[in-house]
């Protein structure tokens, strides 16, 4: 590029840099600072209050459990969907459109959709009643049925956020030249072998970004849980919301935020390390 125009790129990125500095980096530092400040000076008081809270252990356990169950299931489900869709020739676009609809649906709306299905007088119970499995309206989403509530949230999360994994994986699959699988086939690899030995390794970069995106979002999970179970199923982001809005205690809310960020960063680091692809291994 001509030397005389070298200021142009800086002028072009400057607004976004200023914006991100003001609304990403500053709040980031503020959150950390806020979490360590209580009264005068720095202390761990907020963290102690957070850890001492009745819901804390439960929220940590629930969030991790949810993430550990939902994210792997989503990847498996999305891989299955992607494999099926790539086998289609006609109707492919329509099927893809339907399968990706949840991509645009908010977690709150997803929670509400599944509430329609799973509430006491909902469609699931109606179906079970018709089959003679239950006697009348039955509650699944209360504190007394933690396992059922957990599964309801898992279902809603699978429904809502598998689409994003699917889209990332299909975008990744499109980048893999067909010749590789065909070459493997000629050398006698069966479909399953082709999938595990050719497709999966080449899909690693896409898998990595899908996992990072989904895991970070899973630790933020909040509205689905709230729509389905209210505070019956405490999660980290929900606790942060409660401390901020209901208890008006910004310090403890910030401590929760820092905890969520720390977990997210750690998870990202793990994915980057475990699923790293050496550049020379890319097609």
């Amino acid at each position, binding site marked *: 590029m001509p030397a005389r125009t070298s200021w142009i790129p800086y002028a072009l990125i400057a607004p976004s840099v200023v*914006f991100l500095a003001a609304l990403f980096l500053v709040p980031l530092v503020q959150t950390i600072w806020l979490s360590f400040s209580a009264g005068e000076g720095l202390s761990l008081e907020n963290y102690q209050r957070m850890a001492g809270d009745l819901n804390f252990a439960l929220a940590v356990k629930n969030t991790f459990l949810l993430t550990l169950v939902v994210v792997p299931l989503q990847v498996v489900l999305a891989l299955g969907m992607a494999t099926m869709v790539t086998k289609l020739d006609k109707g492919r676009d329509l099927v893809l*459109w339907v399968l990706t609809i949840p991509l645009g649906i908010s977690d709150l709306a997803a929670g509400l959709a599944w509430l329609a299905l799973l509430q006491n007088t909902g469609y699931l119970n109606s179906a079970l009643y018709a089959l003679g499995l239950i006697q009348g309206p039955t509650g699944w989403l209360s504190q007394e049925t933690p396992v059922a509530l957990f599964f309801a949230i898992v279902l809603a999360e699978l*429904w809502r956020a598998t689409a994003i994994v699917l889209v990332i994986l299909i975008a990744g699959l499109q980048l893999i030249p067909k010749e590789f699988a065909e070459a493997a*086939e000629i050398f006698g690899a069966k479909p399953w072998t082709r999938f595990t030995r050719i497709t999966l390794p080449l899909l690693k970069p896409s898998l990595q970004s899908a996992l990072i995106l989904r895991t970070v979002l899973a630790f933020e999970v909040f509205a689905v849980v709230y729509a389905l179970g209210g505070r019956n199923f405490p999660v980290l982001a929900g606790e942060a919301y409660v401390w901020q*809005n209901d208890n008006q205690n910004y310090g403890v809310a910030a401590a929760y935020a820092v905890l969520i960020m720390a977990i997210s960063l750690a998870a990202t680091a793990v994915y980057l390390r475990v699923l790293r692809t050496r550049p020379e291994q890319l097609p």
Partner: protein
Amino acid sequence: MTTSAAELSQTSTSRSMALPSARRLLLWTGLAVLIAWVLVPIYLVALGAFGGRLGVFRWPKSIWPTDLSFAAMSQFLAIEGVFNALVNSLIAAGLTVVFSIALGAPAGYALARYSFRGQNAYRLLVLLTRAFPLAILALPLTVSFIRLGLYDTPFGVSLIHTVLALPFAALVTQSLFMGIPREYEEAAWVFGCTRFQAFIKVILPLALPGLAATAIFAFVISWNEVFAASILTVRERTLTAYLLRILAESPLHYRFAGGFILIIPSVLFIFAVRRYLFAVWGIASK
């Protein structure tokens, strides 16, 4: 020998699109299940939204639409604050679109067309945002937003939503502009355009569909966001924040009406951008 021949024929048919009818049936059954899995909850929330108070509490329920009415929906929209929340959501999402394109597209253009010192640092900043739960960052902003008069305004909400949408917009527009050959621009320069004229006359018309798709994604990101919107508003709530607030105390059919209104734009938007979906995510997830 015979087995290998059988294997050969099997693999060769699986490669071609002409699957044996049994496998074909299996494939379509699987897809039908998946399609139902996606569509049924939407259908049911729609039934809930238009079934009214009676429909919601009917027992046992029928999955067929019976005595549908717009009464519940219009009652819901008439509730104090709902319409206002809808308007706030639209304003916040509209502003998010404007900000994320206005800030992100120039950055995307710079990344696509120039190599400059600090380029990698900028990319890192953009990618770094992805490793953070961004909505959580609304927490400390409450205080400064109150001080600046941004608290409890759709404008303030749109700022934090722009943090969510901006990195996405920058990365997507980068590859959008990379897809437009530099030669077009150079030809425009040679034939008498200034840089700005060349951008307006040649690059912009070619980038417009992709920019529209990016804008729609930014809209959806803002429209759907719950956490930050709930933290940063009290009276001027967005629709998601409003629904979250009233969840506990409002009757089921209002919740379903709200859920339905939230879902509809997403369905339409995803349809509008379906051609770009994979390109966009292929890029944004690199």
